[in-house]
């Protein structure tokens, strides 16, 4: 099983995500620089980490979405590799068109940095298979632009197709329908604002995020 974490200038959760991948897979992920044009052919799992890629210039995730490596990520996603975008990674995935919608400035105008309660809406996905549908979990968030926006037709489609993976169980940033994380049509790409990689060890105070990574690995093992 091979995993990779994409690194942009300004990424700051890349190492945390790499530790999470290594903890559950037992192997170090490849750290892939934004200028690289290729990923290993047999890549199974790609992490697009949080941070402030390219200083959030123009729009959060906008420059990173157009960087050379993202074409390779899109190709791998097409092939069925799992892609997990967290926080800035979610913004990069919407900007690159791998996920619909956009992340706007938080409705309150403030940066929000705290633990939030989330409801697992879809426990069938590769990312959420170790959770129960309707279960409440707590992950931290730390973002300024996490206010999910899409037109009503897109939101209805996401809901109808079970592509809302996670929903805020409390008001956080003004997200449409309290959406915290969404899946692509084929279910192998997940973008989410909260940070599961920050709650995987008892030393983190909580381990609610660990099952997301364990479920992914389990899914990959069964698939292979």
């Amino acid at each position, binding site marked *: 099983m091979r995993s990779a974490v994409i690194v942009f200038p300004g990424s700051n959760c890349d190492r945390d995500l790499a530790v999470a991948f290594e903890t559950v897979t037992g192997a170090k992920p490849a750290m892939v620089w934004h200028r690289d044009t290729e990923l290993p052919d047999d890549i199974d799992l790609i992490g697009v980490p949080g941070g402030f890629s390219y200083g959030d210039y123009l729009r959060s995730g*906008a420059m990173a979405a*157009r960087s050379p490596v993202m074409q390779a990520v899109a190709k791998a996603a097409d092939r069925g590799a799992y892609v997990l975008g967290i926080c800035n990674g979610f913004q990069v995935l919407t900007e690159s068109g791998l996920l619909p*919608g*956009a992340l*706007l400035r938080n409705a309150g*105008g403030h940066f929000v940095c705290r633990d939030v309660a989330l409801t697992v809406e879809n426990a069938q996905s590769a990312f959420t298979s170790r959770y129960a549908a309707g279960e409440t979990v707590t992950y931290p968030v730390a973002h300024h632009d996490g206010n999910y*926006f899409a037109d009503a037709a897109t939101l209805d489609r996401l809901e109808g197709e079970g592509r809302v993976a996670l929903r805020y169980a409390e008001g956080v940033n*003004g997200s449409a329908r309290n959406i915290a994380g969404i899946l692509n049509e084929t279910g192998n790409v997940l973008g989410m604002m909260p940070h599961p990689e920050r709650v995987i060890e008892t030393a983190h105070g909580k381990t609610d995020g660990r099952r997301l990574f364990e479920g992914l690995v389990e899914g990959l093992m069964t698939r292979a």
Partner: protein
Amino acid sequence: MKARIFVTLKGGVLDPQGKAIHHALEGLGFGGVNDVRAGKLIELDLADGTSDEDIDAMCRKLLANTVIENYRIEKVA
């Protein structure tokens, strides 16, 4: 040749920055401001002969996110 690209949030897309500016104007005692929407101005210095199609493509592919933003191109001689 220069072009100015005006990027604005679509109607109906919440603009917390505009709201904050609005509140600040009211705080300064300016009445009669009904609404404030903030946008971006991007100035491009372009090689002569750059086609309108190319400028439009720059807007669609990078300068504006058409999910949430509109853009307007103003060519300056």
